[in-house]
């Protein structure tokens, strides 16, 4: 089986295409065959970019009337599959809406989903996925047996996003079938938390803090340092759960995957679930007072010391330079 056709779910971040969807379009293009996008909302605004990254057609589910994307997008996908056939694979971003879409679609067409995908290659005629398991200590490869389409939910930063030279994708509307009760959830209000500087998963430098900071207000040291390095501020789950910082800052298995040039971990022990989200960083600096902290096993530079001493001096030294 060569890959004939792949569909990619095109999600947005603000007005733009979500970086993860660009990564998926790039990957789909590299596997050969036809690439088609599936989106909702204002498709015309992104058709040129979707085309540049390799899709010839952009199917548009249209206005969701305040509903969550999961049910309508899954229902439209299932309807298209039953009327005009299935692609070999559907690449879905591993994010809030992507997981909903994949889950609902899988039930509708009775096909399983492979999630937490971090690699995808064609081997001997079938698509083989990679998954980082046990905190990234082992790599598991898997593939679908049985009939397609194969539904893959792919994590951020698994592939690089690269523009190609395709023209604008042709926007083709898709009807939303009757959703019955499943379409009952409506968004009544959106709350956007302000954040300055580069996004966590795009920043060249990420400075993350953990429970070793001791108390919530000490997180300002992390923010100050991130700002001085023109980077983004991250966090371990321990301090997200403690309510010190919003979830959007969380790095790790249940948070974001980051691969910056430099990752600085301050007061973070290095639990496997944290490391799986940052061990792809090019360089890792760790500050921890416990010489035995697991984070040191993957650090390029480890400072055994107190964050309350090291960070203020580091901030001062950097302030002196700018």
């Amino acid at each position, binding site marked *: 089986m060569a890959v004939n056709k792949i569909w990619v779910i095109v999600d947005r971040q*603000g007005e733009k295409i*979500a970086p993860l969807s660009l990564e998926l379009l790039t990957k789909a293009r590299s596997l050969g065959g036809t690439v088609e996008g599936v989106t909702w909302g204002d498709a015309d605004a992104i058709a040129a970019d979707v085309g540049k990254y390799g899709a010839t057609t952009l199917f548009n589910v249209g206005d969701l009337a305040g509903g*969550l994307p*999961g049910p309508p997008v899954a229902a439209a996908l299932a309807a298209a599959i039953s009327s005009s056939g299935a692609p070999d694979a559907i690449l879905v971003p591993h*994010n*809030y809406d992507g*997981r*909903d879409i994949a*889950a609902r679609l*899988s*039930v509708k067409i009775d*096909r*399983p*989903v*492979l*999630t937490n995908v971090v690699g995808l290659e064609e081997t001997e005629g079938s698509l083989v996925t990679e998954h980082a*398991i*046990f905190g990234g*200590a*082992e*790599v598991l*490869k*898997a*593939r*679908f*047996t*049985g009939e397609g389409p194969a539904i893959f*939910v792919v994590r951020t930063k698994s592939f690089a996003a690269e523009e190609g030279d395709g023209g604008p994708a042709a926007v083709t509307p898709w009807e939303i079938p009757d959703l019955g009760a*499943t379409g*009952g*959830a*409506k*968004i*009544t*209000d*959106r*709350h956007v938390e302000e954040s300055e500087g580069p996004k966590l998963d795009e920043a*060249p*430098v990420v400075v993350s803090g953990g429970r070793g900071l001791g108390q919530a207000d000490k997180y300002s040291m992390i923010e100050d340092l991130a700002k001085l*390095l023109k980077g983004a501020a991250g966090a371990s*789950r321990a301090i997200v759960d403690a309510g010190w910082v919003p979830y*959007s800052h969380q790095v790790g*298995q249940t948070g974001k995957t980051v691969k910056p*040039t*430099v990752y*600085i971990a301050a007061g973070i022990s290095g639990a496997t679930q944290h490391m799986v989200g940052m061990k792809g960083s090019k360089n890792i600096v760790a*500050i921890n007072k416990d*010489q035995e902290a697991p984070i*040191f*096993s993957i*650090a*390029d*530079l*480890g*400072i055994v010391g107190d964050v309350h001493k*090291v960070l203020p*001096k*580091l901030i001062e*030294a*950097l302030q002196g330079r700018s």
Partner: protein
Amino acid sequence: MNVVVCVKQIPDPANPGKLTSDTHTIVRDGKLILDDSDAYGVEMALQLADAAGGGEVTLVSMAPHGETSGLRTALAMGAAKAILISDDELAGSDALSTAKVLAAAIRRAEPDLVIAATESTDGYTGTTPVQVAEVLGWPSVSFVKKVAVADGVVKADRQTETGYDSVEVPLPALVSVTAGVVEPRYPSFKGIMAAKGKPVEELRIGDLGLDASQVGAAGARQQVVSVEPAEARKAGEIAVDDGDGHEKIVAFLEQLKVI
């Protein structure tokens, strides 16, 4: 209001995980415990039932070998009863099969609301809850960090990339909750004693009208190709801070031309 909480019983995450060498599934030989992620759902359900002025919290779990240790923990927290689906045919189930089984068991409990965690600690596919909702033909809200129910409507705050959305959904519905939605209570001694006498209904797939070709390894249409150790990252220079730790970091950043 009657609430079902899906609770997964898992190998203790404190012990390093292992896959079997033949089927590449997680080794589940020892005692299984309540997944921490589900303790939040149990607590949330107890609070919601309380706030509604009545109703029962029923646990639904699919686990091998008639395992009930994790269920007893959740019963000790205050849930009224449990349904356990345990069947050798279920070994090797993928998330879709799991969802079919859970949904069939949930139907028997006729709940108004189903709560699950956004993802489990061991398998963490994170698709099971919404697959359950789709099998039931229900609406769902995933990634919920706050939830209240009034007049047959769930009001939930759903995590987004940049903040959160306020979402409303009529019952019956399913929500998947994130860690930290509420502080799970510790079972009291009284709770632990009471839990021992609470009903746990144990079912096999036949009792749910499912057959082995739909679920378990037979129903799973995915295959593990290989499992190999990941490329290890090596530790670099480790230095004890003698008041000069920050200088080492500055020098390192300079060398990388980050500053």
